[in-house]
């Protein structure tokens, strides 16, 4: 059956490093969710109809939660949703932990959490079929990097190849930064343009990642 689009996605670009946040609105109930809190509150708030039902955290690197205190202060009834590992970072907020494969419903929309450690230990992708909000696990043109504490290249391989790339190839990803030519892309198109998504196995992926890090320039 053909998917029915019963929601809208507004993309907001800004923050520390071309961060991307998204506001998803259920067309029927008008309930909204925000993906990440890396964009200044005043840039987001003008698109919010009433208090958003939830703010979904893709991972807790500072640039993705930079303005969360301000969001929480202004939207006191909003749930803040993220991985249990990071619960201690959200003691003063309306925090709800979510685990791999758990689902929550907002209006007519059902979001599925996919735990995708690798770039960071608490990384979660949120699937609202046919959309996947990937945070820093996958960008347009490449995967996330594994250079910080809490990163793990084997886990990233597992998350990308055994979780994300097992989803239908027509799913469109909405990443946490605007690093590519486009802001959004389907999985199949992304595989075509990204060497990091064409590995034969983990060893091959690891070599490709090393090659990427040695040859990367500030704009890729």
């Amino acid at each position: 059956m053909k998917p029915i689009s019963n929601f809208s996605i507004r993309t907001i670009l800004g923050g520390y490093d071309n961060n991307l946040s998204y506001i998803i609105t259920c067309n029927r109930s008008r309930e909204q969710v925000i993906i990440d809190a890396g964009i200044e509150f005043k840039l987001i708030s003008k698109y919010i109809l009433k208090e958003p039902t939830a703010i979904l955290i893709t991972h807790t690197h500072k640039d993705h939660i930079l303005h969360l205190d301000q969001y929480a202060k202004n939207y006191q009834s909003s749930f803040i949703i993220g991985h249990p590992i990071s619960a201690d970072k959200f003691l003063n907020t309306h925090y709800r932990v979510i685990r791999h494969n758990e689902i929550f419903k907002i209006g007519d929309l059902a979001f599925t959490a996919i735990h995708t450690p690798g770039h960071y230990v608490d990384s979660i992708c949120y699937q609202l079929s046919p959309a996947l909000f990937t945070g820093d696990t996958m960008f347009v043109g490449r995967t996330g990097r594994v250079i910080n504490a809490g990163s793990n290249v084997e886990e990233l391989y597992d998350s990308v190849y055994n979780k994300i790339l097992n989803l239908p190839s027509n799913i469109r990803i909405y990443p946490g930064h605007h690093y590519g030519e486009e802001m959004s892309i389907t999985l199949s198109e992304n595989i075509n343009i990204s060497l990091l998504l064409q590995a034969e196995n983990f060893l091959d992926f690891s070599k490709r990642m090393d090659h990427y890090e040695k040859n990367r320039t500030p704009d890729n």
Partner: protein
Amino acid sequence: MKNKILMSFIILLSFSCGNQTSLNNDCLDCGAGLTNGFFYKEIVFEDIASNLIEINSSASVIGTCIRFKKDGVNFLEAYVVEDCCCIEFQ
């Protein structure tokens, strides 16, 4: 020609109705959402080993979908539902 146009219209109409019926009947009635504090999931072994069955004895089959609330570790409420909120239609 007229017949062809009429036939195309009927086919188009029946596709539209089919989709809408699935959405309305199956997805809007699947129970309370996040505003009421509920998550959904398929039962896994770890859930059976926790306090799930104490909360709801019918939630005992791995793979069955439940609507639930947790306090972080333990289940507070759990209800068996027919599917996991019709995610295939979203």
